[in-house]
């Protein structure tokens, strides 16, 4: 293992501290919690949007804290949900009197800890609601879509919910906006190599030289197919094809696309993938309204990428287009 770290047990905490030091114009650390909130939190009268989950996916989730996106984010240790207490502390730090929406990827650890935090907040009179993000097509068949896990599509859901909250939506309205964004988002990934968890120091799975795994999750969960690595064009087309099969109504409509790097894949390769995905979407009559290419939801130093597509309707369009000022997304 070769990593630029100090202490394997302090990776999550020190990374978050560095982020807060680098971007004080957007966010600040919360005392006594491994969490960040937008610098002017709480915003009076606004619904607080709280994201979070295990660390190791930077810039997800803390990098999307700031005006127009999440009001706060709680970071667990590497690939582990944060405990309930820091979630409660962060929720209070962003509570402007209109309630707090929890937004996180659908993993059992996150569900248990965020649900317990919601109970604790309810006892203190703070209203919460929850949207679990389920964009990963590979993780369960369509008929069990509510069991799917959340991957890079988190980005679209946080963007939409943050914009709705910024436009003074009520807790019910912001929750509905997040649910709608989640229903319209699909993702599919491919892994080329494993990552190494700092505290254990070993790769989390074996992937032979020259092989790829389509549909592998952000923590090495097995995907739908292991095969020989193909060209960028072929891989991009397979990812888009699987998304189109899952959401056929995407064809001939408006969409936003995110080509997301998993950590070790160069931006040049992501653009090559984007190029192929773009061509295939155009062939299917999709009008791309917004494009995002880069490392948005990583898996430490895993190589590979994912493609996320958000099917846009008239409600979602202005929310996605709305401005945002965060460390990992500045949109004017």
């Amino acid at each position, binding site marked *: 293992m070769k990593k630029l770290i100090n202490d394997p047990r302090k990776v999550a905490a020190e990374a978050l501290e560095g982020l807060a030091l680098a971007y004080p114009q957007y966010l600040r650390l919360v005392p006594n919690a491994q969490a960040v909130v937008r610098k002017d939190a709480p915003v009076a009268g606004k619904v607080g949007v709280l994201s979070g989950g295990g660390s190791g996916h930077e810039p997800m989730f803390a990098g999307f804290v700031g005006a127009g996106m999440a009001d706060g984010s709680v970071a667990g*240790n590497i690939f582990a949900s944060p405990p309930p207490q820091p979630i409660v502390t962060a929720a209070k730090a962003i509570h402007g009197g209109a309630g707090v929406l929890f937004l996180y990827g659908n993993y059992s650890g996150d569900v248990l800890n965020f649900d317990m935090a919601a109970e604790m907040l309810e006892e203190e009179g703070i209203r919460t609601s929850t949207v679990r993000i389920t964009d990963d097509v590979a993780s369960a068949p369509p008929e069990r879509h509510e069991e799917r896990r959340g991957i890079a599509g988190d980005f679209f859901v946080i963007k939409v919910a943050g914009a709705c909250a910024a436009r003074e939506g009520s807790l019910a309205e912001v929750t509905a906006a997040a649910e709608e964004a989640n229903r319209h988002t699909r993702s599919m990934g491919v892994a080329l190599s494993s990552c190494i968890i700092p505290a254990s120091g070993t790769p989390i799975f074996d992937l032979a030289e020259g092989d790829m795994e389509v549909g592998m999750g952000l923590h090495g969960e097995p995907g739908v197919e292991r095969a020989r690595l193909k060209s960028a064009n072929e891989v991009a087309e397979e990812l888009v094809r699987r998304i189109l099969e899952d959401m056929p109504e995407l064809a001939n409509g408006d969409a936003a696309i995110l080509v997301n790097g998993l950590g070790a894949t160069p931006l040049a390769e992501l653009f090559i993938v984007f190029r192929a995905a773009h061509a295939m979407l155009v062939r299917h009559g999709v009008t791309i309204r917004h494009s995002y290419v880069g490392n948005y939801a990583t898996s430490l130093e895993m190589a590979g990428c994912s493609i996320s597509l958000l099917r846009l309707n008239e409600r979602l369009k202005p929310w996605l287009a709305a401005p945002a000022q965060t460390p990992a997304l500045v949109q004017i």
Partner: protein
Amino acid sequence: MALQAIDARRLSQMLVFVAGEIARREAELNALDAAAGDGDHGITMRIGFEAIRERLGQLDPATPVDAILRESGNAFLGGTGGAIGVVMGKMLMAGGKALQGVQEIRAPEFLLLLNSWETSVSATGKVKPGDRTILDAIHGAASALTASDATKKDLDVVVDLSAAAAQEAARSTADMLCRVGRASRLGTRVLGHPDPGATSFAIMLRAMHDWITSPTALDTQL
């Protein structure tokens, strides 16, 4: 002569001893987890028990049995995160509730403790025996005691019985498919490897037995 009753002070010592055993087995638990997950179960368990050890060191020496269990659960829950943090934290706290007002843990109280743990884990994780989770080991241990009329036996005998049953149950999870959690997406890839959570629980009970029956272990310092 093995210890026949665990009072509050002894309970703290025993938990510290269990923490040491979990830390000693960390790499092994990580390796089991790597077969079905991201390979950090040992790390998480060690961190959780370190949080318990730290909390116990801060407690008033007069803290009673039930409060020690509640505080331990609270410390584990706050110290780790992940699903196991909530499951283990609530489990230990449920044990505190079940032993409310109890001065010493003997065989009947130990059975109460195991039963409360089984109820708690089943409710928190929404799991049942056979789902390939920590519950399989807890259920195995509790059932073995219920079946053997354990309350009339000596403490070391019942802890030994429960530890053996938990280990057997943990081993049998190697033949089970996973229904819940991240590993549930693995299908048959988990077969052949015992569940790390169930294995951890078996290690905890075996460590408790080792501590009860070992004169040097009884001297464990806080």
